């Protein structure tokens, strides 16, 4: 056990030194997400919406005059609570319930005021009850932050582990290690922990730095957010290990890594919500670890989700990690391909 710790910590230290001394890649992994966020903040510096959006709870089959209003999108909700949360975050301008003849608006939203005026002009104002909620507007930057950080973590985990191991194998660093008493388990554990540390350290630094600039919307606990980050990173690192388990070709591995990253970039809800997308796309997205990382982090930040609400994402991430890690360890070869 002492031997294990000695070897493990030596490889860990060497890997961390290697990473932090490689200034160009270190710089890039910090600058890239910050630039993206700054870009989005600039592009979406307006409120980012061109259209009015009204939520409807308990939608009835009768067609009301109000629901015929042009240039207004009507979205149906089953849960009143869910819809109220959106209203608080300014993602809805107004919420109506035709059955109880109640409407809610966010006092701090100018759009809400206009929608209220339109509603009251179309219905008998005396029958309706007004209620209001309070809440800061969620900007696109707030919404996209978990996506961008998650994507950055994904690239760092997959390429930082997968590519590095294949490079080690190709230029015989692994062969040299194999000629020592170091076991595959010790080597792989050190790679995982090193990358986990690097990814969480850099992501936290970027988060803290950007939070200072943008003052992100944060309803949940920082601990939950960090936990989701660690679990997500762990599952992505395991996927990287699996992809790199025996190839000695950087080209092939690069292709495989791209094949893994691109679907996640597009389908895991980094840039836009998957809420309205077709069922089969959501099913595909369900099997991508990044989806659970991003959705989990977003739930903590914008909905204030606690560990109970996150338990599903956590279970999926842990399962994926175990499967990838198990396969990756079994398939792992020092030499790779044939030998």
């Amino acid at each position: 056990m002492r031997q294990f710790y000695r070897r493990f910590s030596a490889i860990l230290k060497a890997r961390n030194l290697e990473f932090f001394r490689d200034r160009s890649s270190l710089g890039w992994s910090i600058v890239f997400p910050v630039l993206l966020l700054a870009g989005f903040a600039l592009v979406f510096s307006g409120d980012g919406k061109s259209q009015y959006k009204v939520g409807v709870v308990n939608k009835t089959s009768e067609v009301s005059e109000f629901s015929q209003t042009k240039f207004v999108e009507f979205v149906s909700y089953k849960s009143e609570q869910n819809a109220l949360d959106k209203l608080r975050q300014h993602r809805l301008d107004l919420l109506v319930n035709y059955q109880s003849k109640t409407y809610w608006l966010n006092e701090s939203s100018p759009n809400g005021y206009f929608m209220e005026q339109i509603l009251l002009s179309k219905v008998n104002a005396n029958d309706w009850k007004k209620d209001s909620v309070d809440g800061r507007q969620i900007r696109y930057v707030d919404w996209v932050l978990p996506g961008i950080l998650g994507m950055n973590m994904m690239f760092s985990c997959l390429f930082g582990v997968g590519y590095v191991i294949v490079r080690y194998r190709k230029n015989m660093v692994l062969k040299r290690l194999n000629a020592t008493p170091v076991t595959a388990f010790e080597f792989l554990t050190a790679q995982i922990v090193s990358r986990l540390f690097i990814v969480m350290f850099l992501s936290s630094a970027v988060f803290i730095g950007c939070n200072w600039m943008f003052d992100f919307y944060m309803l949940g606990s920082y601990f939950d957010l960090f936990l989701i980050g660690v679990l997500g990173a762990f599952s992505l690192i395991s996927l990287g290990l699996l992809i790199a388990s025996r190839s000695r070709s950087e080209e092939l591995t690069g292709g495989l890594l791209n094949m893994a990253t691109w679907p996640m970039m597009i389908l895991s809800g980094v840039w836009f919500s998957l809420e309205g997308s077709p069922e089969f796309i959501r099913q595909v997205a369900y099997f991508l670890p990044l989806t659970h990382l991003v959705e989990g982090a977003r739930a903590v930040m914008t909905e204030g989700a606690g560990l109970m609400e996150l338990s599903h994402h956590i279970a999926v991430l842990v399962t994926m990690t175990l499967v990838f890690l198990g396969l990756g360890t079994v398939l792992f070869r020092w030499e790779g391909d044939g030998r």
Partner: protein
Amino acid sequence: MFSMSAIVEVQNLTKQYGDLTAVNGISFGVNRGICFGLLGPNGAGKTTTIEMMEGLIQPTSGEIAFFGRALDKEALKQIGIQFQSTALQDYLTVNETLELFSSFYPEPADKDEVMSLCDLHEIADRRHQKLSGGQKQRLLLALALINDPQILFLDEPTTGLDPHARRNFWDLISDIKKRGKTIILTTHYMDEAEYLCDEIVIMDQGNIIAQDTPQKLLTDHFSGAIMRLPIANLGDIAISDIGRPFGEHHVDIDAADVEQVISDLLSRGIKLEGLQVKSANLDDLFIKLTGHQLQETSETEAGECI
């Protein structure tokens, strides 16, 4: 041939890659405290052999024993290895790289001592990508010594070094040998084997074609000196009448008695212009042996076809 003091024994070792037989059922033993050389041209099977002995390649068949026990991960603690080409983790200094490898072993050698032996103190804080060829080889040797091994494997340790660096490296290896370590090295430089090795095995196309001390091999296969004459001097006389060809322009004659051969040549009217007299070295031996060997194998193959 096997002596009781052999600490490494190899029996009927074979490695096949598909149809290609890289190593063909070879056997030898290595005695404690000697420098043992595996010689041969590129592709002879030296590296495959040595990597099977290091446990990196699984043999197709045959046995390898260290200290009388089959090779296992435990035996790796007793051996030090320097590969033909090794990349190390980037961005680490010489000192850090040694520390890293030192921590892999339960009872590592004293790092300062290894660094002094390999003359690394001056470059201890330099990153290893910035080392010269000779410095890099010294670092790799130090890594091979960091576990204070009983057996040291060196795979073509001086390939690519300039003559001066090679000499220094040879002195270093001689030093290590004086400390009682057993050294097993591969090389395609015959002068290196002559300088360093107490016992050699010459390999060609996966087979052992000679095995003994360098001196014994030379005295067995060559008597006296080698006399090298330009072919143009022979006139009508066939090469096989007086010796064997060396390259396209020379003929080599084994001369037990140099004076006798010279008077023979003169009496046959052969001019002595351009004559060289030299003592045989392992290069000559290798050319002599592989010449025979190639003919023999093609004959047996032809025989098998019929």
